């Protein structure tokens, strides 16, 4: 087969998480968003009055803000949202043991390999199904050291003082239209507290699954990494493929205290009918490091720009973003770094692959405030195009108000080089292997930062997607 046709036939889009459980739930709200829905969600969670007030205020803010006209195409979202279930309660209570999780839900997570991974490589696991966390567990040794890893609802119930001190401070309700929406209807997500000095050797993982058709998932995560602590948190997301659209809008707030080191990894593999509009931000204090590892493979449209606000002297922010956009997908991703203190450093590396009619856009903000002396930042964006109909964009915003700043941005766009392919094929590889090897090499800088099992999984995914691509 001529090479161009071979490229056309590359099937990167096969979606292996497309299985559906029968729809079972103990409660769900009527479709659409209203004050009644917000009150029902709050009622189901038996919340304190201040949280209901916060939700209702957030609803007002959401309604007052216009739909964004930048980024991806949101022109049909308003209609879609009228049909969306904003809250679906799958079971009555969250479990601490997989044995107690209803069999069909448990089976879902088994297919996704979660309980197995928990045994082998994780310090703790949270699993969200529709709107609620159905399972949460932390290994005893970390529990003993005072680590808190719980559902966000239990965080509010059991640790109200820490919760109220930080909730909504990193990402205020009015930050953007979707942070306001999330603040009104949030449900599920994790509450994490790492005590000062505690270093978690293995990652915590939260897994998000949407099963219901026309479902909206609005998890809210609040993480406090205490002074000098060290931890890694991984989130994964999947959903079955429906002909109707689903919606996911999370808010992730992280406080990284002095000299702490926190890494947040997302492997987002939503089905291609999902709008994924997420706000993620970390406040990074003196000498601390925040790392975002953001992998966006799924969804119809993702708009997500993990941010680091470097507010303490010597703070460091690191954003690694990898996006894959196949047919009909638009990945509008990137990162934001605000340097608001002296001697802060940051790095953003973005890698994207566009195939078929896919479009990947890098959108990033780099801001250096006056007085943030000797701030240093470097941004690198590489885009790979595997099809003549694919599209890639780069939209960096660089705003520098400090003379001593040292800022660089670079981006390149290329297609898989004929020379690279030819070289590998002259060494006896077939085209399919050669193509997969080049793509793997392209994402290598990101894959190598994942725990081994996840790196293997990511590579396997790429291989699977390259399979049968050359006839």
């Amino acid at each position, binding site marked *: 087969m001529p090479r161009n046709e071979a490229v056309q036939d590359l099937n990167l889009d096969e979606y292996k998480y497309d299985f559906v459980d029968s729809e079972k739930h103990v409660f769900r709200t009527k479709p659409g968003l209203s004050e009644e829905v917000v009150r029902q969600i709050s009622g189901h969670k038996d919340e304190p009055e201040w949280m209901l007030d916060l939700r209702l205020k957030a609803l007002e803010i959401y309604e007052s803000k216009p739909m964004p006209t930048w980024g991806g195409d949101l022109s049909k979202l308003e209609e879609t949202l009228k049909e969306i279930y904003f809250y679906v309660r799958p079971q009555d209570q969250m479990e601490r043991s997989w044995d107690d999780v209803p069999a069909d839900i448990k089976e879902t997570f088994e297919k996704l390999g979660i309980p197995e991974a928990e045994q082998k490589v994780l310090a703790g696991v949270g699993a969200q199904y529709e709107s609620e966390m159905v399972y949460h567990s932390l290994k005893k040794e970390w529990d003993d050291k005072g680590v808190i890893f719980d559902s966000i609802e239990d965080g509010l119930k059991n640790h109200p003082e820490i919760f109220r001190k930080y909730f909504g401070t990193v990402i205020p309700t009015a930050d953007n239209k979707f942070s306001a929406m999330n603040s009104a209807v949030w449900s599920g997500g994790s509450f994490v507290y790492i005590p000062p000095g505690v270093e978690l050797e293995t990652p915590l993982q939260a897994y998000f699954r949407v099963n219901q058709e026309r479902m909206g998932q609005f998890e809210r995560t609040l993480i406090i990494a205490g002074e000098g602590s060290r931890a890694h948190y991984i989130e994964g997301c999947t959903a079955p493929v429906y002909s109707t659209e689903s919606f996911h809008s999370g808010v992730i707030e992280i406080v990284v205290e002095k000299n702490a080191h926190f890494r947040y990894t997302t492997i987002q593999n939503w089905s291609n009918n999902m709008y994924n509009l997420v706000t993620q931000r970390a406040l990074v204090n003196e000498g601390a490091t925040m790392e975002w590892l953001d992998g966006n493979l799924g969804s119809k449209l993702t708009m997500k720009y993990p941010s680091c606000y470097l507010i303490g002297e010597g703070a460091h922010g690191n954003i690694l973003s990898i996006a894959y956009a196949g047919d009909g997908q638009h990945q509008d991703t990137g990162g934001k770094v605000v340097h608001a203190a002296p001697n802060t450093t940051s790095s953003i590396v973005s890698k994207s692959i566009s195939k078929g009619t896919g479009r990947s856009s890098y959108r990033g903000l780099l801001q250096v405030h*006056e007085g943030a002396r000797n701030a240093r930042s470097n941004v690198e964006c590489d885009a790979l195009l595997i099809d003549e109909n694919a599209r890639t*964009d*780069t939209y960096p915003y*660089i705003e520098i108000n400090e003379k001593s700043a040292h800022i660089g941005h670079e*981006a390149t766009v290329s297609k898989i080089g004929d020379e690279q392919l030819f070289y590998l094929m002259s060494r006896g590889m077939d085209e399919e292997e050669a193509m997969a090897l080049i793509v793997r090499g392209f994402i290598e800088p990101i894959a190598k930062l994942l725990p081994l099992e996840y790196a293997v999984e990511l590579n396997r995914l790429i291989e699977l997607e390259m399979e049968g691509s050359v006839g």
Partner: protein
Amino acid sequence: MSEGIVTGERGLVELDRAEVAARAERDPEWLRERRLHAADVYQRTPMPTTRLEEWRYTDLRDKLDLEALEPGRPAEVADDPAAWPAGLRAAMDDDREASAHIVLIDGAVVHTDLDPALAAKGVVVESLARAVHDDDMWEDSREYLATQAVSPERGKFAALNAALFLDGVFVRVPRGVHVDLPIRVTRWVSTPGVAHLDRVLVLASEASQVTVVDEVLSDDLASHTFVSNVAEVIARDGAQVHFVQVQRLGRNAFNHTEHRTLVHRDATSDSLHVSLGATTSRLDLNTQMIGPGSRAELLGLYFGDGDQHFDHNTSQDHVAPNAFSDLLFKGALDERARAVFRGIIRVHPKAQQTDAYQTNRNLLLSEDAAANTLPNLEIEADDVKCSHGATVGQLDEDSLFYLMSRGIPEARAERLVVLGFLGEVLSRLSLGGVIEKVTREIERKLENH
């Protein structure tokens, strides 16, 4: 063109159709129609705000007061250098090597000369206001004025210019003719408090070659003054066009330049825009690679001090395959100056084998200076080589240290490093007179540093 005032009590906020028509009463019918159409577009186009991506960092509410401005009238100045302002004469004295000169004062042409040998070959360098009445001279050129390159629909300022431009420059080079020495355009502004609107149309026929050096300048102005210039450049198949613009307006000037080049098959367009003067200066620069094999180089240089605000908005449109474009904009900012660079490379779906590059580098020389840079890419073809880069930083300490270790005083060493930084741009376009003029102006600015 008549001298009628076009506006009512609110300056240029609204244009009266009848008055635009009256002002254009001596224009040929087709041009009057075009002006009226532009006036309609102006009326229905809202003033750009910072909500628009392209105006995100330039808030016109603080910088341009349309209510206080009325369109300029032709200056009554003789075609005699003795009658010209000293600053204009000085600028002209530096321009010895030229194949033609054309001088505008307050938007109207007061002097034209052209090498007779070139005139004999059919080269035209003429006042636009005169050229539009001359059917022989104008031939098939009228279809290009305020249409394909900079139509009124491009935006509020393009529409205003098309409706009200007083005069301008028309350059036409016939097929195969090479104009070896530059055509020097000098646009002097003397009357404060008004809007001076002029435009340039360059038609380079097949396989022709031409260089235009356009300088706009003034002394410091007593009050808020608006200078609007539109440049339309058509490089037909195989033509080579070099276009240099040096902006040295005085303080209180708000300068807007919209420059668009259409580059046809195997044609080359090189441009250099130098921003040194004015209080606010905005450049909308677009180069369209509409023919296969076309090539373009887009250079820019700026030095801001005081409260100067520069906004350079550039785009490289690759419409045809096999084209090359490379942009380099470098600037230094002192005191409270601010520079915005927003550049975009657009590779359209059919533009395979595109080679396109874009670089913006900024040097901050003071604590209060600021730079915003937005180098964008939109790529809709896969067989392309594209890259962009942007940097913001302070003077290179190593270079400074090296020079100082050789006994050069710090202040002098700083100046040398800045000149070296900016010199990279000038070195890519060797044009007698321009480099010296620009370097001298930057050195003058650096003396205050």
